[in-house]
Every structure is written in structure tokens, then in C-alpha cells.
């Protein structure tokens, strides 16, 4: 059973549908016992970092996620959920994240002056190392991105990048915790394969 962590941020319907499509049982929940009891966790999220980080903290789920990560549970952060794995973000102020991945979340606009923000659409993956999450996925495969900020790794967590004027972090992994900037639930067959890899870990 995969628990999609519900902390009041974003629309989880598509994510739930995509897991059902690949035959995985899942539950959308903000309940501590349910999250503790799940085999794997997905940390979703859209919207602003500060607001999401506050909601995680207020619900106390930040501590539960850190505990479960330490226990070795496989966790996948998606989009803002990936960014929340970082130490801090500079989206409208300065906000603390979960700090599982060392580094910061910074605006794309400070790097790409002539490109449109948000970075929206299908872009290709380029791997810096191979992880099980991307079994069967190759350099050049397209996935769907929507974001205006990017994670800047300060440790060796980087797994894949995408080219949007510079090498933008597309995926990270720190031990049993992985994160993807793109939306696997909106990335067609490629995305479903990645979710299946996660479910099979």
C-alpha cells in the first residue's frame, strides 16, 4: 500500500488514478497511523513552497516523514514535494524544507533571462547516474514539467537533469528518498513506468 500524503496542498486525483492504472493500491491520507503503516510514501504538492512547508509543519507530518525516511521507507517527492526535500527555498522569502537533500530551491528566473517562466511542457531527461527508479528510462525520454523554481543540490543527490537554458535538476535521490521535479502522473507511459519502478522497490 502506497500512501499519498495529504496535507491540504494540490490535487491528488490524477496521482491516485495513475497508481490505480498500474495496479497499485493506494490511499490519500493525512493520518499519522495510516502513513506510518504504509509500505511507501508519496509526497505530492503544487503551489508555493512556504505555504506547503507551513502546512506540513502545522500538521506535524514533517516529523513523521523524517522518521519514516530514517526507518528506510521508500519516499517519492513529486514537483513541490521534491523541492520540500531540500534544506531551504527562496520562493517569496526564505523557508525551511525537510532538509533530507542538501541544497536550496531557487528561482529559474535568476538563471534564464530569455526563457519563459514557468518552465512548462515536455522536456528530456539526462541522467547523471542510474537509479532503480529509472529502470528502463533513457536519456532523451520526455516527461512533463511545470515549475518556476528549481532545486540546487549541494550534495551528491542529483540523479537527472533537463535542459532549460542550463542543467535544471529533474530528479534527486538520497538513500531511500527520491524526488522528481516533473509530474510522472502526467508524463504518459514514461511516467507510469517510473511510478511502477517506485511501487516495485
Amino acid at each position: 500500500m502506497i500512501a499519498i500524503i495529504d496535507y491540504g496542498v494540490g490535487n491528488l486525483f490524477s496521482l491516485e488514478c495513475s497508481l490505480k492504472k498500474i495496479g497499485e493500491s493506494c490511499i490519500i491520507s493525512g493520518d499519522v497511523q495510516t502513513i506510518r503503516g504504509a509500505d511507501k510514501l508519496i509526497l505530492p504538492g503544487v503551489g508555493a513552497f512556504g505555504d506547503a512547508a507551513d502546512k506540513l509543519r502545522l500538521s506535524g507530518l514533517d516529523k513523521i516523514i523524517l522518521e519514516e525516511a530514517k526507518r528506510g521507507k521508500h519516499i517519492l517527492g513529486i514537483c513541490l514535494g521534491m523541492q520540500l526535500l531540500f534544506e531551504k527555498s527562496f520562493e517569496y522569502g526564505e523557508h525551511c524544507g525537510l532538509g533530507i537533500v542538501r541544497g536550496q530551491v531557487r528561482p529559474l528566473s535568476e538563471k534564464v533571462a530569455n526563457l519563459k517562466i514557468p518552465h512548462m511542457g515536455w522536456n528530456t531527461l539526462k541522467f547523471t547516474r542510474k537509479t532503480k527508479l529509472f529502470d528502463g528510462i533513457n536519456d532523451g525520454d520526455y516527461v512533463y514539467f511545470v515549475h518556476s523554481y528549481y532545486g540546487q543540490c549541494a550534495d551528491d543527490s542529483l540523479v537527472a537533469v533537463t535542459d532549460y537554458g542550463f542543467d535544471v535538476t529533474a530528479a534527486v535521490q538520497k538513500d531511500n528518498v527520491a524526488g522528481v521535479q516533473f509530474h510522472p502522473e502526467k508524463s504518459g507511459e514514461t511516467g507510469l513506468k517510473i511510478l511502477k519502478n517506485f511501487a516495485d522497490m
Partner: protein
Amino acid sequence: MLAKRIIPCLDVKHGRVVKGKNFSALRDVDDPVELASFYSDGGADELVFYDIVASAEGRSLFCDVLRRVAENVFIPLTVGGGINSLNDFDRVLKCGADKVSVNSGAIRNPSLISQAAQRYGNQCVVLSMDVKLCDDGYRVYSLGGREKTDIDAVTWAQFGEDSGAGEIVVNSIDTDGMKGGFDVPLLDKIVSAVNIPVIASGGAGSVEHFIDLFRSVNVDAGLGASVFHFGDFTIKNLKEKLKQSGVEVRL
């Protein structure tokens, strides 16, 4: 590199697709779920669903359709038609829409754009505008292109961006339905004025029109309706030709 997107638009009325083509691969051409899967498998980068019935009964049918599509098709889904309030955003987002496009609703109540962007995020809000070249310049039309307003198209696009729209669909009334190509001069004006993705709509009739579009103006996507429903070419076919012409596409 970021790929240029090809987006079919499906008009839905009473739970069925209007103007469905006789695709041999489809048993039921008017079934939105079948058609959506067909397009997705064929390489569509996104789908737009347009609710052309505003009645309460039509709306609940539309949401039902949307939910069934979202359960089966895993590419971004945009919904338009009859979006006038935050409640309308809520209604379609809960049924699986990823983005919601506002048109007349934003003309009537411009603050709807910023309200929706604040609540659901910029990525969720698409400003769709119907534009016609008039004696006094490019003007925005409301009510599906029936009613002229005094709003200048470039000003409206910039207002949309400033209010938090994540994307703009520019539909040219002048080229719409003519199958003579996209309205490149209009699109060029809008693209130069904003820094968010712009989707071209209206006028697609051939593969060459798409090639010409992406070569002449820096739009992010091309939208087509009847060209795909009745078209002489498939999306895959179109994308292969685009690639050969040096346009970055997802194949």
C-alpha cells in the same frame, strides 16, 4: 530541450464529443474517453476539453466525462467553457483537470485570474482570448467571439500575465475555421509582449501550417480541433514532419 506541444481540443456536449471524425481505430468516435485515449496514444501532448453546454445537467455530465478521462489518460488535461467563478475552478479540478481556462468569465470579472492563481497556483490558470483585428487594432471578443469589447489584445495578455495566469491561449477569430494557417502577426505581437507560454489557436488546416507557425513565431504549442477530428493527418504524422523540419517535438 523543451518540446513544442501539439494539443487537440475536444468539444463536449451532453457527455459526447461534437464533430467526431470517423477514425477507423475507434468503435465509438463520439466517446470522449475513447477519443482522448486515441489522441494520447497517438502523441498528443495535452488535451483540451471544452464544455459547450452551460446547463446544470450538462455540467454534471461533463464532470463525469472528465473523471473517466483522467482515470485513463495520463497527460495534462485543460478544461474550458463556462468558467466564471472559483467554484467552477473547484468543480473541474476535483474531476481531474490540471489546468482551467477562463475567457468571458475573466472579461466579466478580471480579478478571477488573480484569485484563481492565488488559490490554485499560476500553473493552473490559462487565459484564453478570442481576438479579431478591427479598425482600432486587435480587440478581445467575449461570449465565444460574438461580442466585441474595447480591450486591446496585447494589454489583456499582459494583464493576464501580471494577474498570475500561467499560460495564454490566443485564438484568432480571423483565421479560425478558415484552415488557411495560424494568425502569425497576431501571435507575434502577443509572444513579444509576455514572458509566459503562449498557445496558438485558430486556422490550422495542414502540416505546413504548423511548421510555418513554429518557424515564424516563438509560441509553445499549437492547438487544433477539426484539423485533428476530420484531419487528413495524424498527430504522429504531424510530429514526424515537424521534427524533420527542425522543430523540437516529443516523439
